[in-house]
C-alpha cells in the first residue's frame, strides 16, 4: 500500500504543519511515512504545500507522483492545482523552478473548504468532500489559524470512503500526533479543532 497526500494552501495557512502532523499520525499508527516540502515555506504570499507518502512498508521514492488525496485550503491553491501548471511556491522562483506537477489519481479524495474554494471538479472522477473548514475554525473555535488541523479531521473521516468504511489513520493517532507536533499551550485547541473537523467531516459525508 502506498498512499500519497498533498496539503496545499496559501501562505500562512499551515499546510506544511498539517503535513507534518499527518506524517506523525501515520507513524503513531505504525505506518511508514515520508514528508517533504519545497524548502522555503511561503509566509506572506504565494502557494505553499506539504506532501506526505504513507506506506505499510519502508518507502522507496519519498516524493509524491500520484496523489490519493489532496487537501485544498484556498482558491489560489485550487487554481494552481487545476490549471495543471507547476505550483509556484516562492515569489522569487519562476514557474520553471517549482516542482513538477504530480497527478491526482482518479477516485482520489479532494477535500476543499466550502466557503473559500469554488470547486467545479467532476464528482464522478474524484471523491470531492466540501466542508466549512475555515468557518468552523474561526467561528466555532475563535481561531482561524487552526483551519489546517480542522482540515485534517475532515481528511481522517473522509479516508473511510477509500478503505471500506475504515479510516486510514485512527483519531487516537492524530490526537497523539498533535501532542507531539504543536507547542504545549496550543495542544488542547488543536485537539478540539481536529475533533470539530471529524464532526463536520461526518456531516459532509452524509450530505455527499
Amino acid at each position, binding site marked *: 500500500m502506498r498512499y500519497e497526500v498533498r496539503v496545499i494552501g496559501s501562505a500562512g495557512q499551515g499546510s506544511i504543519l498539517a503535513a*507534518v502532523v499527518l506524517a506523525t499520525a501515520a507513524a503513531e499508527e505504525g505506518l511508514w511515512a*515520508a*514528508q*517533504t516540502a*519545497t524548502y522555503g515555506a511561503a509566509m506572506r504570499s504565494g502557494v505553499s504545500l506539504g506532501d506526505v507518502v504513507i506506506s505499510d512498508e519502508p518507502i*522507496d*521514492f*519519498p516524493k509524491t507522483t500520484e496523489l490519493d488525496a489532496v487537501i485544498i485550503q484556498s482558491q489560489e491553491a485550487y487554481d494552481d492545482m487545476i490549471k495543471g501548471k507547476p505550483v509556484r511556491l516562492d515569489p522569487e522562483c519562476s514557474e520553471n523552478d517549482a516542482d*513538477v506537477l504530480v497527478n491526482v489519481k482518479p477516485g482520489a479524495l479532494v477535500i476543499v473548504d466550502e466557503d473559500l474554494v469554488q470547486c467545479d471538479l467532476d464528482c464522478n472522477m474524484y471523491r470531492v468532500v466540501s466542508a466549512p473548514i475555515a468557518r468552523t475554525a474561526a467561528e466555532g473555535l475563535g481561531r482561524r489559524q487552526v483551519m489546517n488541523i480542522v482540515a485534517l479531521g475532515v481528511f481522517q473521516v473522509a479516508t473511510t470512503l477509500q478503505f471500506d468504511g475504515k479510516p486510514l489513520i485512527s483519531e487516537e493517532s492524530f490526537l497523539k500526533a498533535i501532542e507531539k507536533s504543536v507547542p504545549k499551550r496550543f495542544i488542547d485547541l488543536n485537539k478540539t479543532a481536529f475533533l470539530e473537523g471529524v464532526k463536520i467531516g461526518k456531516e459532509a459525508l452524509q450530505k455527499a
Partner: protein
Amino acid sequence: MAKLELKYGNHACAEAAVLAGCRFYAGYPITPSSEIAEKMAELLPKVGGAFIQMEDEIAAMGAIVGASFAGAKAMTATSGPGFSLKQENLGYAFMTEAPCVVVDVQRGGPSTGLPTQIGQQEIMQSLWGTHGDKLIPVFYPGNVQEIMVETIRAFNWAERLRTPVVLLLDEVLGHMRETVDMEQFTPDRIEVWNRKKPEVPPEEYLPYKPGEDDVPAIADYGTPGYRGHATGLHHDYTGFPTTDPEMCQELIERLIRKVKRAQPELEKNEEYMLDDAEVAIVAFGTTARAARTAVQLAREKGIKAGLLRVVTIWPSPEETLNRLAKHVKAILVPELNMGQYVLEVERCAKGEAPVYRLNRANGKIIYPGEILEKVEEIVKGGK
C-alpha cells in the same frame, strides 16, 4: 516490533552523532545543513558536550581538529560553499590523523549555486577536494533511518582509523521528515568504537608510530606525560617535520594503506533485483530511491533491471562494480551532477559493459519515470 518515529533528516544526523559519542560541534550555518547545528546546540549541552558557532567554516573545521586532538569526538556540518572552505583543514586532519566527521548536505553548485535545492555535485570533491594524495572514507545514506546508521558508522571509522570521514547527505534527505525505527538505536543495539590509547610508557611514546593496523595510538593532548606534536608537514614517528625521502614515502603510503586495507569492511552497498538483471542502475542518496522505484516499474514491463545502491562512495566498491559489469549487459548511472561517479564506474567496469549516464544539475530531483525511460532506451539499443 518496530517503534516508528517521525524524524527530520538533519536532526536525525545530530541525534545519531550524540549517540555515537560526539561531544564537540563547531560550525557555521549554511542551508541546507543549518538544522544539524541547531539540533547539536540543543543536544550537546545536555550531555556535557560543547557547541560553538565559529566565525566561518574554515575556523569551524580547525576547531573540530583541535577538539579531536584533545580527545573529543567532533563533528561539523556544512554545504557546498562551506565544504570548499573546509578543504584545507580537512587535508590537515588527514595528515595529522585527527578523527572527525564532516557532514556535507549537498545543494546545487558550483559556487553559491542553488542554496535551497538538491545536488549531488560533491561526489568527487569529497575525496579530491583537498590537495595531495589521500584516501578518506565517504558515506552517503539513502533515507532518514540510514542517516542515523551512517552517522554512527562515520564516527566509528573515524576513531578506528584515525581519519576524517565525510558524510554526504543531500537537500532532500536533510529536509525530509521520515519514519525511523528507533528500536534499532537503543544503547544496547548500537555499536560504538573508540580510538586506541598508547600502550607504552611516556618515555617510549612515539605518537606517530603506527600499530600493525597502520594506525598510530596517539595520546589525547593533555594526557600527563605523553607529549605530542602535530604538523601538516611530512613528519616522522615523533610528529616533528622531516624531509627524509624514505620516511615521507612511507608516511603517505601508510596513510592511504590504512584506509585501503579496511576497504572490505568499509564497503557497503545495497543490491536490489540484481540476480538476473540485464540493466544495472548504480546510484546513491535520493537518486537511488527513484532508481529503486524505476527498477520496479521496469520489471512490471518485463525489463530485467536491478539496482546497486552505493553507500560507501569512497573507497569505491571496485571489485563489486567490476563483477557487476561482467554480469549485466549495460550499466546506467543517474546522478544529480554532470557526470561524476560515472567516471569511477567506467574505470571499474573496465569495458566489460557499456556505461550510460543520466545527469541533471538544475536543483531538481530525477523522477522514477525518467530513469525508466532511459532504461527502456538502453534496452531498445539506443544510446
